[in-house]
């Protein structure tokens, strides 16, 4: 996954261009779990949506496995999970998980066993339930299973646990690592993930690499490797190494950032 000078500029109502994401160059290796942290409004979600092809870049280029994001969508290489589960209320858990396989069927190459996947996320007893009958955490597991059903080489997670209670949230950060590691086809390259969050402990717990963003204009101001071995367990969060890593990320977040500058004719 490669970004080259990719940027995003909005036209404000007053007619001034507002730089949401300033030119960003970035490479993410196959199998890397990357967390993107920053305060609200720093453009981290915009950056993720640019990579996912949901908003077009204003300049520069995004490549996902050598393709444009639109081509990556066409070949079903992207697994998206949002802050809200965004499940279809009229479908059962099972049929929600199946959705990605069902759409754009000529590109469905993975032979995912939906029942097995539901079992992996621990919802076998609920597979015929409707989303409204599940807790928020269970709904988000369904959303994860739905994203994984197409066996995507890249998972794009946009604050997936932000709407959950703290207890569920702390479980889910280990759940997502387990699911990220599960690939249907062992000959595939290892799966990559980009995880947007505003929680520093969450980022450090899940990621191999934490990218810190600052707002106005949104840009990456730090790139911090997290080398704690995998698989990680919740106890890891009590280790000195974890405390150290969160301190580094927090320091990067606090570092002086350039003030908002209007994007003139420059």
């Amino acid at each position, binding site marked *: 996954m490669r970004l080259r000078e990719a940027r995003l500029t909005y036209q404000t109502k007053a007619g001034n261009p507002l730089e949401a994401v300033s030119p960003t160059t970035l490479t993410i290796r196959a199998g890397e779990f990357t967390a993107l942290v920053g305060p609200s409004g720093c453009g981290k979600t915009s950056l993720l949506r640019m990579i*996912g092809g949901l908003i077009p870049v204003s300049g520069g280029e995004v490549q996902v496995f050598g393709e444009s994001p639109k081509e990556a969508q066409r070949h079903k290489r992207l697994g*998206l999970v*949002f802050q809200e589960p965004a499940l279809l209320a*009229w479908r059962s858990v099972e049929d929600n998980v199946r*959705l990605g396989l069902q*759409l754009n069927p000529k590109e469905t190459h993975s032979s995912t066993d939906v029942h097995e996947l539901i079992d992996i996320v621990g919802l076998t007893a609920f597979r*015929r*339930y409707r989303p409204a009958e599940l807790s928020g955490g269970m709904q988000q597991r369904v959303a994860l299973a739905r994203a994984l059903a197409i066996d995507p080489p890249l998972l794009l997670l946009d604050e997936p646990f932000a709407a959950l209670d703290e207890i569920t949230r702390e479980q889910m950060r280990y759940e997502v690592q387990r699911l990220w590691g599960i690939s249907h086809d062992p000959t595939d390259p290892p799966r990559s993930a980009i995880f947007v969050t505003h929680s520093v402990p969450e980022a450090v717990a899940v990621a191999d690499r934490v990218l810190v963003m600052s707002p106005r204009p949104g840009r990456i101001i730090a790139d911090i490797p997290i080398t704690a071995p995998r698989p990680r367990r919740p106890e890891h969060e009590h280790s000195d190494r974890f405390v150290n890593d969160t301190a580094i990320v927090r320091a990067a977040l606090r570092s002086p950032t350039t003030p908002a500058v209007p994007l003139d004719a420059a």
Partner: protein
Amino acid sequence: MVSEPLRELDHLDAEATGRIPLGPPDVRPMLAWVLPPLIALLLLAVAVEIWVRVAEVSIWVMPRPTTVVENFFTDFGLYFTEGLKTLGVSLGGLAIGTAAATLLAAGVAHSNILERAVLPIAIMVKVTPVVALIPLFIIWLGHGWNPKIAIAALIIYFPVLINAIAGFRDVDPRMHDFFRSVDASTWEIFRHLRLPAAIPYLFASLKISVTLSLIGAVVAELFLSGHGGLGAVIWIEQNNLRLEKVFAAVLMLTLIGVTLSTAVVLAERLFSWRLDQPVAAA
């Protein structure tokens, strides 16, 4: 998601989208709902009966409720046959109007240009009392069923159109993002996202349009009094000053209206139940 002209129907949306689980109906609360209005209606009839008898009101002004009910049963065959005709017009208009409006709404939901072209016309039709077009429809479509069905269809067209557009557009943007992320086609997005999302809205508009289509049918029958239906019965018997027959025909219309509305509510209840209850666990 919904553009401005549609805001006036916001009060429908809460009802349409409220995803409150509706269980299988329990009889006791239903009695609690049905009994009070029945008793009130009975008291009203008794009051009118007493008034007509005591004040010796002329039969050409107000018939006795007991006479109306008596006539309703003695001439039941007439009211039933004519009622079926009215019901046919109403259902025909409902089917054609709903189908046409839903199709146009599907187009409008996908095209801003179509929306800009069509909505002003639709609003013009809405503010025009379409029953005023009945004489024209008679000229164009003849004296049979056609002008009546056309009026019934036209009178429901606008509410169905507006609700269907709102429904097709009431789509969670994140759900839409997921469909895009796997390169789903416009048809797939419509079939698996917009159409199911619109179903509650379609039920909301159906609730309004069953009664509207009945109004359209009756008014058209008043004009076309040589061609049957309860509207024609009312027109003819009013000329004969047989007010008990007028009232009996109105009573039959009320029964048809209640039946249609109840059918829609039951269909919606069945649907909502399917929406929110688990399918029997395997």
